[in-house]
């Protein structure tokens, strides 16, 4: 702090001196002092403004326009926003996305926590298992979707159907069944992401002091009691963080529906981002796509704020 103040005073003094100097010298002084900022910083910041900030700003303008890729674009006011409220398919897409989150969030957190608990208990080959579970995290959705789509073929010679056949279960349609497709896609995401939730929980578990368990053991608590009374509550900050990132991730699910089901059957896997993509890039209705993206943005914002309010209290337990 003090250092900062000194710096401030120094620059203040310099400023006073500078004002007495002619413009050219002042410019030169300024350049000498700030050259690195101008050269390093300004071009990158301009690049950032063009490719990231400008599209965000422009997407708001887009929602009030009838934007055409070729030809004249016209101002239509709130028409696209009105359309959203009357668009049943958009509401269906939101509902599908909520349903997907329900199938996905709790299992991902639970599986991650269970794997972290086991690995943390000091089993042998823990590093090996950790590596295997983390591998899907760095693998692309496209690869995993390819494998998953092959496993869950809806015909009798699909791998999962053959395995189900051993237990005397009829072949299932899976991705072609409007009741099952979304669950199969959720399963794919669970397997892909639980490796990273495992790592978060593992880091959390290691920061719980061992004395707590020793004390509990002296008091005669069994391991199940220790889990519910010590481990689980002390992991609260991790629960909170993992819940937020999985929720945000689940609302942006796109790759697997696009690749495996194309939104079908019967719109049962049309999620918001998929619908947005279809509206924007198949029907070339970019303005309506921008409206949908804002709706999704608001939904994610509201959910994170709610989670922050109810789950984020006293994150500093230890």
């Amino acid at each position: 702090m003090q250092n900062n103040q000194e710096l401030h005073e120094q620059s203040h003094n310099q400023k006073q001196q500078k004002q007495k100097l002619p413009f050219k010298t002042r410019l030169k002084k300024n350049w000498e002092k700030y050259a690195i900022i101008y050269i390093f910083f300004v071009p990158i910041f301009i690049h950032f403004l063009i490719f990231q900030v400008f599209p965000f700003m422009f997407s708001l303008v887009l929602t009030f326009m009838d934007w055409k890729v070729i030809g004249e674009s016209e101002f239509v006011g709130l028409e696209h926003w009105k359309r959203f409220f009357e668009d049943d398919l958009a509401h269906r897409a939101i509902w599908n996305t909520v349903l997907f989150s329900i199938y996905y969030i709790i299992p991902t957190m639970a599986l991650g926590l269970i794997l972290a608990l086991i690995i943390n208990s000091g089993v042998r080959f823990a590093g090996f298992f950790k590596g295997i579970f983390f591998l899907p995290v760095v693998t692309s959705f496209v690869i995993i979707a390819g494998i998953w789509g092959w496993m869950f073929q809806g015909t009798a010679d699909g791998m999962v159907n053959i395995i189900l056949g051993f237990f005397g279960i009829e072949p299932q349609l899976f991705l072609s069944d409007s009741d099952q497709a979304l669950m199969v896609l959720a399963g794919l995401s669970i397997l892909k992401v639980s490796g990273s939730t495992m790592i978060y929980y593992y880091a959390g578990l290691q920061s719980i002091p061992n004395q707590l368990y020793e004390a509990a053991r002296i008091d005669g608590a069994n391991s199940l009691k220790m889990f519910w009374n010590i481990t689980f509550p002390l992991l609260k900050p991790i629960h909170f963080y993992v819940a937020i990132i999985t929720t945000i991730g689940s609302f942006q699910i796109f790759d697997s529906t696009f690749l495996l089901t194309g939104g079908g059957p019967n719109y049962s896997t049309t999620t918001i981002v998929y619908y947005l993509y279809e509206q924007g890039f198949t029907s070339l209705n970019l303005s309506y796509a921008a409206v949908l993206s804002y709706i999704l943005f608001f939904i994610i914002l509201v959910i994170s704020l709610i989670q922050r309010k109810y789950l984020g209290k006293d994150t500093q337990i230890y």
Partner: protein
Amino acid sequence: MMKILNQIRQHIFLVIVSILVIIPVIWVFVNSVKPSSEILLAPLSFPSKIDFGNYVSAWSDAGLGVGFVNSLIVTSISIILIVFLSAMVAFVLSKKQFRFKKTIQLSFLLGLMLPTFLAMAPLFLLMNKLDLVNSLVGLVLVYVAYSLSFTIFILIAFFNQVPDSLEEAAVIDGCGPFRVFWNVMLPLVKPGLISAAIFNFVGIWNEYILALILISDDSMKTLPLQLANIMMIQQYHTDWGALYAGLVLSIIPVTIFFLIFQRRLIEGSTAGSIKG
């Protein structure tokens, strides 16, 4: 006795989940060396003879080779640019005082919080106007812009750890600001640069949706796009062989990368959230 039993129980669970992850991959590999006819007739059997024909057709006919080269170009150029540009910005934001610093920092933070899909439609229009659709240069420019915020915030933390006295000492010894950056600062934040490169590699190598909207020309497609293409075509042609071979070929680079950088990846993924 109880302890051993407990260990066994835990191992069984781990093994089951590992099987869920590994077996499909192994089976894809087994099927990829079968002739196409055998895949349809006997999907769960071992191949009668090993045949690498599927690999050849996936690599050259289905265009996976082209995708691989494109991905390699786009990813490596993007990462070099991202790491150096972010280091420059992070250095300035961490060590220099200037006007509007807070505002600029805030706008980078905003870039971190706004999701990609929000910009999809206007980004496509912008790239279309700039004639950068269907071009690897355009893709690199977009990837660089969308990775800057994230990387800058990782690197600011590293630059903050470097004591100011080192910079002052270098200036007294006659170092200009650029040499301070290049010869003093960069070597000190090297671990940060490496982590940033690794994380951006994973993100960009696997990136799908931006490439999907910006690239439609077959000769420009990246690896995920080409693999997705094979998947789409397979639905009509039922040429499973090429798909399996394509999947195996796509898994190999990721796995090698993962084996090399496993520790950094796993430890680094929690560093930002738990400690920060």
